[in-house]
């Protein structure tokens, strides 16, 4: 009997099931506090580094390129952008099949070097193209809770 075979025949193949029984509460942080509170007002906030001449979206407290502090450099960047790239997704986050596929896009926010990942809505997949102008569609104000989901999706600019 080969070595590997002998090892494997010592017992039936078995397994043990378990999980990591943890949950988390993440604070959104100092920059996140500004960004998500303003989302509730229907605004998207970036942060500008004057040294590198870059506007980050979402806002950050620092420039990752030069480490300048940006907390006094927050600015409203508007809610429009263009489709940087996109896909149509048939699976959920945990690998299950979706009934109706959703379109996921990286949106390049106009006038910035920043990007947001979000869904596209009010558009057929066949009509989406890279460079397509889009705008954020917010939830009704009463339903906003300071989350990225306060934006329902981005839709084509008519």
């Amino acid at each position: 009997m080969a070595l590997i075979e002998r090892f494997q025949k010592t017992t039936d193949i078995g397994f043990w099931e378990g999980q990591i029984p943890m949950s988390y509460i993440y604070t959104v942080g100092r920059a996140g506090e500004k960004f998500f509170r303003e989302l509730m007002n229907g605004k998207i906030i970036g942060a500008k580094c004057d040294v590198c001449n870059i506007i980050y979206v979402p806002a950050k407290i620092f420039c990752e390129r030069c480490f300048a502090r940006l907390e006094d450099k927050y600015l409203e960047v508007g809610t429009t952008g263009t489709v940087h790239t996109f896909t149509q997704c048939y699976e959920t986050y945990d690998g299950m099949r979706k009934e109706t596929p959703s379109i996921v896009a990286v949106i390049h926010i106009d006038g910035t070097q920043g990007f947001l990942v979000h869904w596209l809505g009010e558009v057929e997949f066949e009509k989406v193209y890279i460079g397509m102008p889009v705008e954020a569609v917010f939830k009704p104000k009463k339903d906003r809770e300071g989350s990225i989901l306060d934006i329902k999706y981005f839709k084509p600019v008519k």
Partner: protein
Amino acid sequence: MRRVAIVGAGITKFYRNVQETPKELAFEATKMALESCEMKLSDIECVVHGTAPDAFDGIHMKGEYLSDGSGAFRKPYMRHYVGGGTGVLSPIHGWFHVASGMFDTCLVVAEEKMSSAYPHPAGAFLTIFDHTTEQPLYPTLIWIFAIEMNRFMTTYGYRKEDIALVAVKNKKNAMDHPSAQLPAEITVQDVLNSEIMAWPVNRLDISPTSDGAACIVLAAEHVARRVTEKPIWIDGVGWALDTAYWTTRDLYYPDYVEVAARQAYKMAGIKEPSKEIHIAEPYDPFTYKELHHIEGLGLCKRGESVQMLLDGVTQRTGNLPCCPSGGALGVGNPIAATGVMKIIEIFLQLRGEAGKRQVPGKPTCGLAQAWGDLMQVGTVVVMRS
């Protein structure tokens, strides 16, 4: 190999439940470290990051997540992780980058945000135990510390009231540390009267749940001499892991710490550590661990650490001050950041710039040590002025 110096340091306040995201914490420590030595991010050639389980912050692949806050944008970057031993592995990891000649400067960043984890960060440790032979018994990390402390105590006949003095000493030392989370003047009786967690461990025997970050700047000799008049040299590094079958080791003595220390001493040319090391920051997540590690480091003979403590040798004014910072028990224990906090303490002490915490006698040789994984890793750094 080239000589490597620490030239700058930065550290956040240690608290439980901070508003900052992990990467914002990392940024604050890193920014301070760069400012401390008047360097720019563009002066940095590579970055290493130490951070313990992803399950604390709850961010899978948190090394990658933390990279921008650590100043690693488009730079060579590596993350390392050996549980509680991570913080002192961090400077070792950075040391390799510079000593090898590959890079002249290196940022060494460590971060932990344990308060994100619910129901309690201790629960994140359930899955470090063997999943079939131990996890079904629902072990907690506090048990295995208590189990080790018991073995340590019964082997030498140490008394709980003597070991409690470590908490008294370290929390008092922390009164002078600007980052400290749990500075306090307490008595041995306070420790003994505090809530029993798992006998022989009471609440005040344990370091807290903490959020925080710390950073040092490493430089090759020719750079270090231009950056600062007082570079602190990393003269010895050592680390080792013991068997993962932790229940088959005799827990009274940390062999892995001894192996790591011997490696570091050999490299630093140290023959008699108890005489040649002037100041030490052994890892003290629990009171007994400081003593356990002092023995493993060879700073006293086996079984003599408690007497050393009782004699005041490890006080800030003693012959071999241990945890003059206030340690994990006093300053707090954001796991990986704690190890770098200890490195920073030795850095400041050897420069003679530790302020109210400064130990007398102008120490010139110090040591920081951490410990972790499944009670099996020792990491040691020897530093000289």
